[in-house]
Every structure is written in structure tokens, then in C-alpha cells.
């Protein structure tokens, strides 16, 4: 029996595992979602994801809109107090009421009092996730008021008694068949509910009657303009329009961060929100209302026609504290579009009931849960692997992985210092602040240290690491899954081998570079670095090899930020002399490259220094393509496809961070120019994501994510026979190998193999 798994609770209900401050709940939730929800989640999130890529690429000014939106939100949060005051004045002047609720409870109590003043029997709700955050239904129902959720997804959740699993499609984890089963059992109906149309008709008829009878309508708000009191309300079903129009009393509940200075400033959000959320040009209804409305409220015969009343309930519930937090601050720019959920490979596989808390889910969800609840509630953000695919998708440019790395760091600091973790941390010289991190995190975060020792006596290390007892111990104490094959230590590291290769130097060089001996290439796959050396030298580049220094990626991904900062600072100070010597920095491992291109902006105090390194750091193949272009030489002068040992047909899976920093295209273009036929994967991430897939806790999830990639390989090979597999990341290589049991090369290795010998 496998004691490492929580025993027999596949039948967990989503509510029982919603709070993941206990890690066991996270593991239970992963199992539950993989068993039950995964197919529907995959289908729905991947549809959103494809549609978003299509919609945003059709916006001619997508990047400018993002810049504008970001700037408006930055300004709005900076001037939140003034905007609040302005809004208060204008809402009151229009005859509405406004209430700033310091806590969730006060928000609920206020709304309950409004309902009770009107002797309300029935409240109808449009979709409002903020009302889920404050548990409004709980309060109202506790006081004997009927609450009718009218968004069909929220309706499903109300029937099933579950929390949302997605911020814009809260019941996205339900496929049609499961909804049919749910309705049939809960409503005891014999109606045929076997199509989307039949289910929709069933719910619509139930809810139409509620809309007409409701005493109070509750909606959220996507944005609120401080100058006019205008609410922007985005929806597809028409239920939010009904909730705000038909009942005499309209309560809008929203977080204080939704306020922006003016109605005019809503303009850039119109298309940006629709495109980022559902991937539509515009959703069915986008309303701009400055309540109370002029239309008389609806009154069926026998009901008195009341005066309209409007209440705007603005929820603080931790947001003002987030505003003062140097990191969580950025969360308040979020417009809740769900792009970060849909572009996340882990989210696509398990959804928000595993990758989420009691209200919020996905990449941005951890920051929301920590900010509006407590830090421990953000433990599920462990499922953010830092793959960074969400970064370019966020319409307000929030660096979501950075938020999650910080949450992880804070959780590390709060955890108990363990004997093994503390010992490892001390040995590997982790920053003092990071030593209370769990042993697994310290092992992966300081991997360079253990790799260095392992590489001193490679045969011995490989023999030891290969024994069952050691694998058992590594699983038991370091959380390293036994089913994963470990990278074996090479007989000679990249740095050691490179030292023995004489640099040629007859002609003046075309360029000067230094190959950064990143930890993964140096101690894991030095042949990739050697291939890079061969190719660059064939292109007449004067190339040196740096010492192997951890640049901080590994530590950062474990939330060991202080260690990562130390690593990054040391690395740039050691590499500075190469820049001074006129050398560009060339890197094989994309996750290391992304540190210089992206992450170091947070870790280096000197912004100018970050810029200098960012501008002069290149992916190996990107650099080759650049040299060819600069020299005006054709790729075929150097590379001959006929020499390929693996044929001319390729399947290429690019590393997630390589995609984010925008250097996949040079590889595919160069290989095509040389004459290769390439299929590229379209998955966001392979599922291994550095250390993530090696961890015992996440092995099943990692392989489930990988299944999409393996499937794409199989699809691409249908009919045409096998393709040669290429992957650019060390861990992607291992994952692709684990899923296909085939050899996987780095593009630079293929290029080295097809070099035309110089005459």
C-alpha cells in the first residue's frame, strides 16, 4: 500500500477541500479534479485560450490598449481615496446610497439590512464573485431570504453547493452530462434534459419567474467610474441586465479596486476585457449604467409599484492593506478576465477546485485569497510553476509568477524549520531567510550545490542515486518522485570539457561571445553546451565559456527569493567582465535565459544593470540566426539538412519561458530555411516545469498535463511516420522522453550535427 497518498477520498466534495491552508487538502483536491472534472475543464479552458489568442491578435492596437489599461489602473489605485470621495458625492447626488464595507461581514450586514428594510422575500443575483468572497448568500439565507442565482453557472453551483472554479465561468468544471445528472437528481424531474438547449430552457423558465417576483436585485460591477457613478457590467446571458432593471432595489457589490477615475477611461477596457476573457470582440451585453435608473421598476399585478433605490457596496476586506503591500499591490490592477487561468497548463488540467481556494483560483487567485483572507489560504498557488505563460496574456501586465513566488517565499518563512531542510540550507548556503523552507524546496532551489558535489565523482553519484534505497530516501525526505528518472551526472561537465578545447583564432572573429554555463547544461546535459560551442565557432565567433554559477532561477522557483537575489547579483557581477570585453552572453537553457531577460528586473536593485544584461543576452539559436542575418550569409552556407542524423521532419516543443521572452520564432524560422519540415507543439507547458514534475506530490498532475503534449506528437505522426523530437528545455526534454520513450534533442545539437565542415 502506498502510504504517501491520502487514503480513499476520491469522493471529496469540492467544498470540503476548498480551503487549502492544509496541504493535504491540496493533494486531495488534485486527485478529485483529475478523477472527475478534468475533461470538462480541459475542453472549456482550452477553448477560451484559443479564442483569446485569436481575438487579441485581431486587435490592431492590443499592446497599446494593454499599456493604457495598465496606466489607468495604476493611477486609479494610487488615487483611490480621492476617487472614492468623488464617487460618494456623485452617487448620493444621483439619489443612490454608497457604503464602504471594511470587512466581508459588514458588507453582508449592510445588504441584509437593506433587504430587511424592504421586507424582501426574494433576492435575485447576477453573477458576482465578490459576493462569493463575502459569502453574501450565507448571510441572506440565514435570515430566511430566498436567494436566486441567475447566472446559469452560478445556478448550477447553487444547486450543487459548490464554490466557483473559474472567475468568469464559475461552473466550467461541469460538462453537459454531469449537469443533466445533477438537475435530474436535485429537481426530481422526468423532463428530457439531454442537450444544452433543454438544460438552458429548464433553468431559464425557473429563473424568469424569479426575476419578475424579486424584491431586490444584486449585481457586481466590472468597473466603476468615479466621475459619473457609472457601472460597467459585462455579460452574455442577460441576467445582469434583468437583475439591475426589474426589481425596485438594486444593490451593486464590488471591490474598491474597481473604481477608475472617469467614464471616459472605461474605453480601452471594452474590447480588451472581452477579448482577454471569452475571446469575443464584445460579449452579448456590455451595459453602462448610472443607477438609479429612470425606468419604472417592474411590478406584477397585486404588487405595489415602488420607487427605485440603488445601493453601491464597496468592499475593502483586505484590499487597502494590499494597496500598501509592495508586492500584492499589483493584484489590485486585476480586471478579473481569467486569461491567466486559461493560459495555464496546470489550470487547464485541474481547474479552480484544485488550483484555487474558497473563491479565487488560478495564477492570480493566490494573491486574491491571501489579500482578502489569510496567507495560508494561498497555499494552492504552489501549482503556479512559474512557467510565465500568463505574463503576456494579462491585459494589465501583472507579473503573476512574481506574485506567486513572493507568496511562496512568505509561506516558506512562516513554516517550521525542519531538521533536514535546515541542514540542507546550511550546507548549500541558502540565504538565512530561506532556510525554513521545506527540504524539497531547498534541494531544488539550491540544486547547483548538490549537482556540483554529484559531478565530482559522477560514476559513484550515478550509482548511488540509482539505488532503490536512495530513491526511497529521496522520495521520503526530499519529496522526489521515484517514478522519475533522475538526470545522470556526465563524466565531464561543460566547463571542464570546454577548457580542453583550444579556441581557434586565425581570422578576426565575426563576434565575441561568452557561453553561460548554466547549472542544468553544465551538470546535466553538457553536450548541448558543446554543440553550441561548435556551431558558434563554425560561424567564426570568438566564444569563451563562463564558470558555472547559479543565476537564481532554481531558487526563485521555490520561492527562495533572498537566495535568488544573492545568486542573481553574484552572477551579473561575475559576468560583467565579459560584457566589458565586448562579449554577448549566449545561453542554452531557456529558464536561465528568462532570468536575464525578465525575472532579474525584480532581483537586481540597479535597473540600468538589468537593462544592460537584458539587451545582451541571447538564446543560442536566436544568436546564430542573428549572426547569419548580420553577416548576410545564408544558413545553407553552414548547415546542410542532408547531413541530419534524424531526418528532415521534426516535432519541436519550445520551452514555456522561451515563448514568453519571444525567442521561439528564430529557431523555427532558421530550421525551416535550412530545409526542415517542422511541426510545433501548441501546449502552453509540458507539465514538468523545472522541478515541479519531479515532486512526488505533483507527479500525477505533471503527467496529466504532459498527456496533451504526447497526444500532439502522436497526432503529428499520424500517417506520416515518426518525427525527430526536439525540445529546448532540460526538463521539457525529460518530460517528452518520459512520455514517448524516445530520444529528444535540443535544436542546437541538431545544428551542430549538420554543420558543413569548413574547407
Amino acid at each position, binding site marked *: 500500500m502506498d502510504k504517501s497518498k491520502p487514503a480513499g477520498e476520491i469522493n471529496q466534495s469540492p467544498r470540503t477541500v476548498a480551503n487549502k491552508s492544509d496541504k493535504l487538502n491540496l493533494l486531495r483536491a488534485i486527485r478529485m479534479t483529475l478523477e472527475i472534472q478534468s475533461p470538462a475543464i480541459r475542453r*472549456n479552458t482550452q477553448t477560451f485560450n484559443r479564442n483569446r489568442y485569436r481575438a487579441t491578435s485581431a486587435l490592431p492596437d492590443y499592446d497599446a490598449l494593454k499599456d493604457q489599461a495598465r496606466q489607468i489602473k495604476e493611477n486609479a489605485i494610487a488615487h483611490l481615496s480621492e476617487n472614492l470621495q468623488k464617487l460618494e458625492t456623485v452617487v448620493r447626488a444621483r439619489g443612490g446610497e454608497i457604503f464602504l464595507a471594511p470587512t466581508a461581514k459588514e458588507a453582508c450586514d449592510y445588504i441584509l439590512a437593506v433587504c430587511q428594510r424592504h421586507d424582501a422575500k426574494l433576492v435575485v443575483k447576477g453573477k458576482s464573485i465578490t459576493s462569493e468572497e463575502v459569502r453574501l448568500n450565507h448571510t441572506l439565507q440565514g435570515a430566511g431570504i430566498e436567494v436566486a442565482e*441567475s*447566472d*446559469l*453557472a452560478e445556478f*448550477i453551483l447553487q444547486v450543487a453547493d459548490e464554490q466557483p472554479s473559474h472567475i468568469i*465561468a464559475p*461552473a466550467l468544471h*461541469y*460538462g*453537459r*452530462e454531469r*449537469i443533466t445528472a445533477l438537475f435530474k437528481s436535485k429537481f426530481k424531474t422526468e423532463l428530457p434534459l439531454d*442537450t*444544452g*438547449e433543454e*438544460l*438552458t430552457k429548464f*433553468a*431559464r423558465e425557473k*429563473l*424568469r419567474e424569479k*426575476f*419578475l417576483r424579486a424584491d431586490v436585485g444584486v449585481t457586481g460591477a466590472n468597473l466603476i467610474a468615479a466621475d459619473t457613478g457609472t457601472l460597467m457590467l459585462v455579460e*452574455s*446571458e*442577460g*441576467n445582469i*441586465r*434583468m437583475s439591475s*432593471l426589474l426589481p425596485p432595489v438594486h444593490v451593486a457589490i464590488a471591490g474598491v479596486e474597481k473604481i477608475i477615475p472617469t*467614464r*471616459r477611461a*472605461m*474605453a*480601452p477596457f*471594452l*474590447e480588451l476585457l472581452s477579448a482577454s476573457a471569452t475571446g*469575443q*470582440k*464584445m*460579449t*452579448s*451585453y*456590455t*451595459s*453602462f*449604467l*448610472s443607477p438609479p*435608473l*429612470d*425606468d419604472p421598476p*417592474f*411590478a*406584477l*399585478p397585486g404588487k405595489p409599484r415602488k420607487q427605485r433605490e440603488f445601493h453601491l457596496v464597496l468592499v475593502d476586506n483586505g484590499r487597502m492593506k494590499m494597496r500598501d503591500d509592495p508586492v500584492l499591490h499589483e493584484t489590485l490592477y486585476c480586471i478579473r478576465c481569467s486569461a491567466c487561468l486559461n493560459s495555464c497548463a496546470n489550470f487547464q488540467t485541474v481547474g479552480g477546485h484544485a488550483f484555487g481556494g474558497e473563491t479565487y483560483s488560478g495564477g492570480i487567485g493566490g494573491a486574491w485569497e491571501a489579500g482578502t483572507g489569510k496567507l495560508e489560504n494561498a497555499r494552492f498557488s504552489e501549482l503556479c510553476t512559474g512557467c510565465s505563460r500568463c505574463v503576456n496574456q494579462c491585459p494589465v501586465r501583472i507579473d503573476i509568477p512574481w506574485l506567486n513566488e513572493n507568496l511562496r517565499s512568505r509561506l516558506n518563512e512562516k513554516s517550521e524549520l525542519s531538521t533536514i531542510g535546515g541542514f540542507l540550507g546550511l550546507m548549500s548556503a541558502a540565504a538565512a531567510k530561506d532556510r525554513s523552507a521545506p527540504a524539497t524546496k531547498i534541494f531544488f532551489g539550491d540544486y547547483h550545490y548538490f549537482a556540483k558535489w554529484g559531478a565530482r565523482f559522477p560514476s559513484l553519484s550515478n550509482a548511488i542515486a540509482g539505488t532503490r534505497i536512495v530513491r526511497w530516501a529521496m522520495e521520503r525526505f526530499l519529496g522526489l518522485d521515484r517514478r522519475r528518472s533522475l538526470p545522470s551526472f556526465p563524466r565531464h561537465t561543460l566547463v571542464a570539457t570546454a577548457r580542453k578545447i583550444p579556441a581557434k583564432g586565425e581570422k578576426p572573429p565575426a563576434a565575441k561571445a561568452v557561453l553561460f554555463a548554466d547549472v542544468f547544461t553544465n551538470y546535466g546535459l553538457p553536450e548541448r553546451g558543446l554543440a553550441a560551442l561548435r556551431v558558434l565557432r563554425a560561424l567564426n565567433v570568438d566564444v569563451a565559456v563562463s564558470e558555472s554559477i547559479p543565476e537564481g532561477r532554481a531558487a526563485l522557483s521555490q520561492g527562495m527569493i533572498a537566495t535568488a537575489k544573492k545568486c542573481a547579483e553574484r552572477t551579473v557581477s561575475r559576468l560583467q567582465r565579459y560584457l566589458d570585453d565586448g562579449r554577448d552572453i549566449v545561453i542554452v537553457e531557456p529558464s536561465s535565459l528568462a532570468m536575464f531577460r525578465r525575472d532579474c528586473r525584480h532581483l537586481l536593485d540597479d535597473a540600468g544593470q538589468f537593462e544592460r544584461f537584458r539587451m545582451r543576452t541571447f538564446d543560442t539559436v536566436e544568436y546564430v540566426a542573428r549572426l547569419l542575418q548580420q553577416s548576410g550569409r545564408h544558413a545553407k552556407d553552414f548547415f546542410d539538412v542532408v547531413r541530419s542524423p534524424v531526418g528532415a521532419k521534426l516535432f519541436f516543443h519550445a520551452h514555456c519561458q522561451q515563448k514568453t521572452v519571444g525567442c521561439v520564432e528564430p529557431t523555427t524560422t532558421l530550421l525551416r530555411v535550412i530545409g526542415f519540415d517542422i511541426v510545433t507543439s501548441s501546449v502552453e507547458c509540458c507539465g514538468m516545469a523545472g522541478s515541479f514534475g519531479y515532486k512526488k506530490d505533483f507527479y500525477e498532475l505533471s503527467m496529466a498535463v504532459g498527456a496533451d503534449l504526447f497526444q500532439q506528437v502522436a497526432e503529428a505522426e499520424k500517417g506520416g511516420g515518426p518525427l525527430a523530437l526536439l525540445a529546448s528545455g532540460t526538463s521539457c526534454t525529460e518530460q517528452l522522453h518520459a512520455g514517448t520513450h524516445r530520444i529528444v534533442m535540443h535544436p542546437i545539437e541538431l545544428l551542430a550535427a549538420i554543420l558543413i565542415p569548413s574547407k
Partner: protein
Amino acid sequence: MSELSDTFEANAREAAAIVERCAHAAGAVRQAVERITANTSRIVIGGPEYVESEIGNHLFELPGVIRRPADEQLATADAGITGAFAGVASSGSVCVALGMELSATASLLMPLHIVLLCAARIVARPRDLFDPACLGGEGLRRNLVFITGPSATADMGPLVRGVHGPHRLHILLLE
């Protein structure tokens, strides 16, 4: 001008609206509406202020139109007719001003929504309506809704058109 109309028509169709071009004349509009509502008996008109009043007068003469409907008649009507004060080419949206006589209910409660849009009031993109110089700044002053196709949901599994709001959106593009 006609380029905007063409783009509008293509995008509105993509959003599952029905688009029909029609001469901007009372007789032609009446004829079109009569044909569209041939199988519907209860029709509500929500202030078509954005077309000439003569068109409005003609429409009120149609059989099946309920003048001054009571709320329970609104709840059971089959079709609503409203004007749109603007159309958006890039998304195929129509903008209906709310707070005018019944325009909010007539564009929401009935299974069929017929909307009259003057081709001259089509703007290029949604955000144009937030420019004070555009259509007299009406987009910044009014309560309004951008309507893009019929109401829809994907919550029940496959995409379903026709949820709480209209199931059919029929746009008469007046030229």
C-alpha cells in the same frame, strides 16, 4: 460610409445577429417589420427615437403592437422593437440607450428583439463612443447597452443562443 456598414454587417452576422438592409423610409420599415413579426402576435415598441418619428407612427399601427403595455404584458410579449443610437462596425454591436420609454425592457424581455439602426450612425470601434466628439457625446451621457448578437451561454456545456435575454436579434440597417 458603406465600408463601415459592410464591416458592421459581417461582424453582426458573425455574432449570430440577423442583418437586413432596408430603405430609410416609413413604408419600407413597416413592411419589413410586418414580415419579420408575421408569426408573432404581441409586440412592444420601446421608443425608436433614433429614427424619424414618422417611422414610429407607422410601426404603432402594426397589428399586434401593444400600446402602453402593462407589466404582465411586457413579461409575456413575443417581440420588442427599439431604435439603436449607434452601431459598431468592428464588433457588429448595436447601442441601445436605456431609460427611454420601454427601451430597456423591449430590448431584453422578449424572445425576439428587432432593432432599427441608421447606417449613418455606425462608428468604427466600441471605444469611439467614449469620445465626446462622437455622435454629440451621447455615448458618455446615457445609460446604454452594447448589444452584440442574441443572449448566449456556454455554461450548460455547448454554446446555446437564447438565455435570459432575446433568442433572436434582428437588425434593420436603415440606409
